[in-house]
């Protein structure tokens, strides 16, 4: 029964080898999906390309459906996995900072790695910036960030139980919302691109 490594059912070297193969699949999905092209990523905020929304929500909901199916058939215990604790104050503030970083920088860390290694110079600059930001944070952590980072701690919170519904019902609702969003954003994208297309739109492969 999963998760295998936390229960000592596979060795550490095998676990790291699996990490490598999972990463390869993730990297192919990101690159092939268009996430090394910064204009495709930014499009979600301006309406000319919603690829981010489609890839991201399909991935998240595929994973959620799969994981809770495995859990309900007793094939894996979600409680034994890395289950993120919620610290709502730093996550909200940091999320807004990252949202600004997305609009300004046109990547997030994972996509910037893919862009940098495949020759996108803007990706290399972004990765450099991310390291500068991490070092800046790390060297000022105790006076500036430590208290904030540990504020608003709620422990491991499941959003479905917080709302008083089952995991399955919550995933069903989000999936329905995602499908509606796919349809609506497709229409927005067509409208934006027929009325006022961005320059060199053919580079986006829409």
């Amino acid at each position, binding site marked *: 029964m*999963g*998760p*295998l*490594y936390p229960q000592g059912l596979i060795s550490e070297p095998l676990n790291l080898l*699996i*990490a*490598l193969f*999972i*990463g*390869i*699949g993730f990297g*192919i*999905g*990101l690159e*092939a*999906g268009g996430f*090394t092209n910064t*204009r495709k990523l*930014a499009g979600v*905020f301006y309406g000319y390309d919603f690829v981010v929304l489609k*890839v991201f929500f399909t*991935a*998240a909901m*595929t*994973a959620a459906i799969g*994981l809770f199916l*495995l859990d309900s058939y007793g094939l*894996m215990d*979600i409680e*034994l*996995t890395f289950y*993120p604790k919620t610290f709502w104050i*730093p996550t909200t503030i*940091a*999320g807004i*900072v*990252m*949202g*600004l*970083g*997305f609009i300004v920088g046109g990547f997030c*860390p*994972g996509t910037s790695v893919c862009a940098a290694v*495949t*020759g996108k*110079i803007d990706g290399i600059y*972004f990765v*450099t*910036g*991310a390291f500068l*930001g*991490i*070092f*800046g*944070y790390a060297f000022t952590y*105790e006076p500036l960030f430590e208290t*904030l980072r540990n504020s608003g701690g709620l422990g491991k919170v499941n959003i479905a139980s*917080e709302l008083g519904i089952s995991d399955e019902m919550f995933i069903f609702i989000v999936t329905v919302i995602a499908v509606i969003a796919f349809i609506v954003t497709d229409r927005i994208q067509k409208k934006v691109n027929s009325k006022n297309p*961005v320059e060199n739109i053919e*580079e986006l492969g829409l």
Partner: protein
Amino acid sequence: MKEDRSNKYMNPYLAGFLIGLMMIAAYYFSGEGLGGSGAFKKVAIATVNTVAPGYAHEAAYFAPSVENGKSPLNSWLVFEVIGVIMGALLSAAYFGRLSMKVGKSPKITNRTRLIAALAGGILWGVGSQLGRGCTSGLIMSGMAVNALSGYIGLAAVFGGGYLFAYFFRKLWI
């Protein structure tokens, strides 16, 4: 003549499905979610631990990752991101997208784009540390297990993006 695939992309739902399967595998085999910034953190910690091990063992940000004596690089997220690099290279080679260039809107200069990319990277560097992860580690991995943190991250990152989009529109449209 060889077919030009450099502007062709995988169907977004198929790409998302593939990433979702990788997420399921990550949780099933390793009990981990997919991550991005976590590997950046480990590399930064390993660098400081090599240059100034005394400081790394004292400072609150670094100490938890170095006190067991093992290299911070010997971690799941670092191997996963090495895989991400290999996967991205494979895919870019297949599509003919391996070339040095600056990705940007044609309306701005390379210089503007590169300064903005550096600044955006700095913001993500700080944000991912304060927020315990980025789009993959905080949001997608959180959403995969119905964690509240993932949905707070989703609302804050995308909400923040739409909030600021108007002011930076000249960078993109």
